[in-house]
């Protein structure tokens, strides 16, 4: 069936709530309102206030109490209302839940999912357009997942809930209302597999979340000029699917990483290092990055110039071919 990403995540949450009475949802405005993006719409009405909880306005409180719920066998799925509001919970995420398994000598698990609408492109004010994935991908013990399409939204949220490790589940808010096919019967790849979403021979575009569509559009434009670009949706940022990345780059000999987050210390840097270490003799050009700039997310009227777009991706492709 066809549905939007927001509806697909909603359907995936619903199925998880139906399947396991230990699944509980918590967050600001997720109950009666259904979340500011309506991702949890209707769930409190159908599953009750004890399983879909409107929380007080406190992100550290949301994540910290979810850790406690997880310690008693629940599988909490919490929503952070906007990317920029996750940082009050930073200690609970990076110093507490991420290392619970490690600190307990492997005795404890923390099956907690932290959903975060993230990324820019919606004309928002400050703190509503952030891409914080690198902070979390840098933290051992956390899994970091991004979804770029409704099918991954539907299945990915269920796979994340089934994970015994804490998962940061990043939802590209500017793609919430993009429609796509969801097969509710056939589960696609496991949570941590990257996926080749367009095959090509001349260069690999590595993308995730909101930039997958940007790269597909760029590949379409490049094809009309005779270049066949491969687009890989990374899907999982921690752990990274090294095998899929290496296989693609060894085929094409060129690699461009595309993300919205600022450049320095970002996922692009990590991927460039891995590709260089693993594919050095296959590379025809250095790994290039198309990213946000090393500035805080700028005012909405300038975000079109900040965000990677088709032209910037194609410009990087040209540079990769110039070596």
């Amino acid at each position, binding site marked *: 069936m066809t549905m939007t990403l927001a509806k697909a995540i909603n359907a995936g949450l619903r199925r998880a709530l139906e399947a396991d009475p230990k699944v509980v949802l918590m967050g*600001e*405005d997720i*109950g*009666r*309102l*259904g979340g*500011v993006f309506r991702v949890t719409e209707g769930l409190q009405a159908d599953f009750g206030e004890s399983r879909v909880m*409107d*929380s*007080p*306005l*406190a992100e*550290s*409180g949301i994540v910290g109490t979810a850790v406690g719920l997880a310690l008693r066998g629940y599988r909490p799925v919490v929503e952070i209302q906007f990317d*920029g*509001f996750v*940082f*009050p919970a930073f200690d609970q995420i990076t110093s507490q839940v991420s290392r619970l398994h490690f600190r307990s000598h492997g005795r404890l698990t923390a099956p907690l999912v932290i959903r975060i609408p993230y990324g820019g492109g919606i*004309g*928002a*004010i*400050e*703190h*509503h357009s952030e891409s914080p994935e690198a902070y979390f991908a840098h933290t051992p013990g956390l899994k970091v997942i991004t979804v770029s399409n409704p099918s991954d939204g539907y299945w990915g949220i269920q796979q994340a809930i089934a994970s015994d490790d804490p998962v940061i589940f990043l939802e590209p808010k500017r793609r919430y209302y993009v429609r796509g096919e969801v097969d509710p019967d056939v589960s696609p790849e496991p949570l941590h597999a990257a996926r080749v979403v367009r095959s090509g021979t001349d260069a690999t575009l590595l993308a995730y979340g909101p930039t997958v569509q940007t790269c597909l559009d760029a590949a379409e434009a490049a094809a009309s000029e005779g270049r066949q670009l491969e687009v890989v949706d990374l899907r999982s940022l921690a752990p990274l699917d090294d095998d899929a990345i290496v296989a693609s780059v060894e085929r094409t000999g060129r690699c461009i990483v595309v993300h919205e987050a600022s*450049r320095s210390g970002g996922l692009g840097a990590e991927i460039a290092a891995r590709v260089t270490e693993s594919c050095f003799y296959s590379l025809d050009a250095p790994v290039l990055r198309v990213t946000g*700039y*090393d*500035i*805080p997310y*700028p*005012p*909405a*009227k*300038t*975000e079109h*110039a*900040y965000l990677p777009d088709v*032209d*910037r991706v194609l*410009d990087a492709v040209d540079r990769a071919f110039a070596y």
Partner: protein
Amino acid sequence: MDLDHDPGFVQLLTPDGRRVSHPDFGYAGDDSSIAAHLRAMVLARRLDAEATALQRKGELGLWPPMLGQEAAQVGSVAAVGSRDEVIPSYREHAVALGMGVTPLEILKTFRGTHMVDWDSRALRFHLYSFVIGTQALHATGIAMALQLDGRVGPDDATNAAAMVYFGDGATSQGDVSEAFVFAASYNAPLVLFCQNNQWAISVPIERQTKIPLYQRARGFGIPSVRVDGNDVLAVQAVTSWALDRARRGEGPTFIEAFTYRMGAHTTSDDPTKYRGRDEEASWRAKDPIARVRAYLRSTGAIDDLWEGHLTNESDALAEQLRDDVVSLPDPALADWFTRVYAKTPSGLIRQRDAHEAYEASFEETA
């Protein structure tokens, strides 16, 4: 004042426009200063309505309306002295106007052409804060700095205090509780001004607290008052008292201004999803502007002519604001690279130059 017993709900002007007395607080001004409050509230409400309309037309990205909170804001900012520092949340548009921010400066942020473009140091009105509750700690630090600077004491010609605004939702954030702890611990010259507008987006106050908020602050050792937030006279009286205490070294005060967000949380919000029309109607009957107007009409302090002038002034403000907002030039991304660090690192300059060269390549080929 004995704050060990509950002074109750401070109100000096009833919803139907009658002056009433309170054992501890009185309004010191005359009818002309009340008329000035009416003017400030009407102009602020007009700015708010115009901004909402501009957002609907696509000229602003977002707008957080302050409809219904005019008295809480106009009354409190009226108590601010010429050396006091004011630290807002993001809905304090009437406070901003009272501190000398222009309507256009307020709207720039919400049009997305600027971050926060007023001179916060010159105006002593700090940057809007969008991550809930964070500013309470900054305000406490500002108050501690005033204390370190020797600005706290009996000399009313030199003393100063800080006042921070936040909402009922923010009181759940750890930062706000920590601000209570620090302010009390250091006896900081700080007024913690909480506009309890009953709703944190869709979540009612009952989810944030089981006791009245002002009683919670007392548990931290901070004297606290609950005031009718729709009564501009009571708000000013209470805030003046609290700021005086702070400036003279008597420490922090928490004020819970009991009010109501008549509009949506922001223009992206739809309150019909979570609250009833009856509730909104009951608060509309307590409108902060209507009661002042009724009072001033009853005393004869204002008449049709006075109100006609105010309507004209209000119309002119709205028209000017419309023109100014749509005329704002779009900024260039390149301008922002040199605002990240006090001294821009060379690598960031190179990144900016590469960005500009890239942008220029389109102009050459076009």
